[in-house]
């Protein structure tokens, strides 16, 4: 039985009158690649942020390994160093080169000496195939390249898990390919990932489990084939039908 890398129990997130996440319990084991999908506004991004403790859950607990992150007095900075996060809108640091962006975490959070931090950063950039672009600024890179640097930024921290919030949604269609290929490489290497995405072909190929999320809760979960052949819930059926129709047309 492989270790549980990350877990949430009875997680709730409420903004004023809006319940974004409703009593969600989820566990991710080492080497898992889970994909969360569902209609927009269903709370998927919020869930991810709660797991990374970028937002504080209203109720419920988040566990990273054995450590409970929702307890008071936890060093969240240290915890976040163990969790990699890739944003939908990328959010690279404008004033730093690609290399600078990837080095910053190892250097300042992990407090590695300059040379070691640089080596790690170069490694990560090589892994995402951005070796020639290290001296470039984000503004000089395409969206796909920027996102790859974003992934490298998370990788360089040697995290226990990487959370990806719709990594390709903000990119032009031609550019998503390079990011997806990068993610496939990472999957092959056995990196634990929790991805929110609509990239169905990718899900089919790579994910161990797909989780259909709507209105703040998990409606259905299972192996990808299940969703592509015969989803059990009505909502999932409807969603998949729409999705397939859309991709068939486009």
């Amino acid at each position, binding site marked *: 039985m492989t270790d549980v890398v990350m877990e949430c129990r009875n997680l709730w997130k409420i903004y004023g009158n809006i319940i974004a996440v409703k009593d969600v319990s989820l566990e991710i084991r080492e080497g898992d690649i889970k994909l969360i999908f569902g209609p927009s506004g269903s709370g998927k991004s919020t869930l991810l942020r709660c797991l*990374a403790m*970028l937002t504080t859950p209203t109720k419920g607990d988040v566990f990273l390994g054995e450590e409970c992150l929702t307890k008071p007095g936890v060093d969240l*900075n*240290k*915890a*976040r*160093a*163990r*969790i990699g*996060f890739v*944003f939908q*809108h990328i*959010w*690279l*640091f*404008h*004033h730093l080169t690609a290399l600078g962006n990837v080095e*910053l*975490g190892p250097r*300042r*959070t*992990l407090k590695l000496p300059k040379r070691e931090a640089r080596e790690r950063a170069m490694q990560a950039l090589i892994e995402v195939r951005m070796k020639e672009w290290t001296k470039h*600024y*984000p*503004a000089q890179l395409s969206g796909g390249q920027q996102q790859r640097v974003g992934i490298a*930024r998370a990788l360089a*921290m040697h995290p226990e898990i990487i959370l990806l919030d719709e990594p390709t949604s903000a990119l032009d269609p031609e550019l998503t390919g390079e990011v997806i290929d990068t993610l496939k490489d990472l999957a092959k290497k056995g990196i634990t990932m929790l991805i929110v995405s609509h990239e169905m072909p990718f899900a089919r190929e790579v994910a161990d489990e797909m989780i259909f999320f709507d209105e703040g809760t998990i409606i259905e979960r299972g192996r990808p084939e299940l969703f592509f052949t015969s989803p059990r819930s009505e909502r999932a059926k409807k969603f998949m039908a729409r999705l397939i129709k859309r991709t068939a047309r486009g």
Partner: protein
Amino acid sequence: MDPINQLALILVGLPRTLAISILSFLLGLAIGLPLAFIRTYMGKPYQIVVDVYEKVLRGIPEVVLIFFVFYGLGLGLGFPLLKDALTAATFALGIRSGAHQSQIFRGAIRGIGEHQMVAARALGLSRLQAIIYVMAPQTFIIASPGLGSEYALLIKDSSYAFIIGVVEMMRQADRVRAATLDMVFPTLAATFLYILLTFPIATYLDMWGSRKKKQLGL
């Protein structure tokens, strides 16, 4: 007295003009930058303090502030540093510049946006680290035009030190006027000297700022 000599005499005041402007700018920077970050990232009580500081120092004329600091705090109450007219003027202009720069930097921070902060925190950086390594460098770049005009403002306002007797350019021009009874040349010469000091700096910083901003896509 021929024009060259007049000009030379006026230039005797240049070092003090520069001293006042540069030092008050630095003081303003040392006050304004932290205040801007405090105002953006810390709780209500801190925000109120910063707001009051800004409001008060922006609502009082420079002249009155300088009088208050020099005649009041310095000569009146005997604060050590403020007894000297030059230091008093620098201090007064410096704390006011702090209020200005606090606003300039705040605008820049707002312009950068929340997401840079979130991305930095996601890497495990503490708030302070995020501010130092991610927010502050970008804040400077965006704020550079505003800082340029703030510096130009300080060069011009250094002339207020003339009123409390500091021997800077304006006072020197006055001396030349008194000596030569020429009301035209010394005044115009001094005026153009000021324009020479303010114009290039403001323009250069503006250009550098715009270029850097475009380069970084800010």
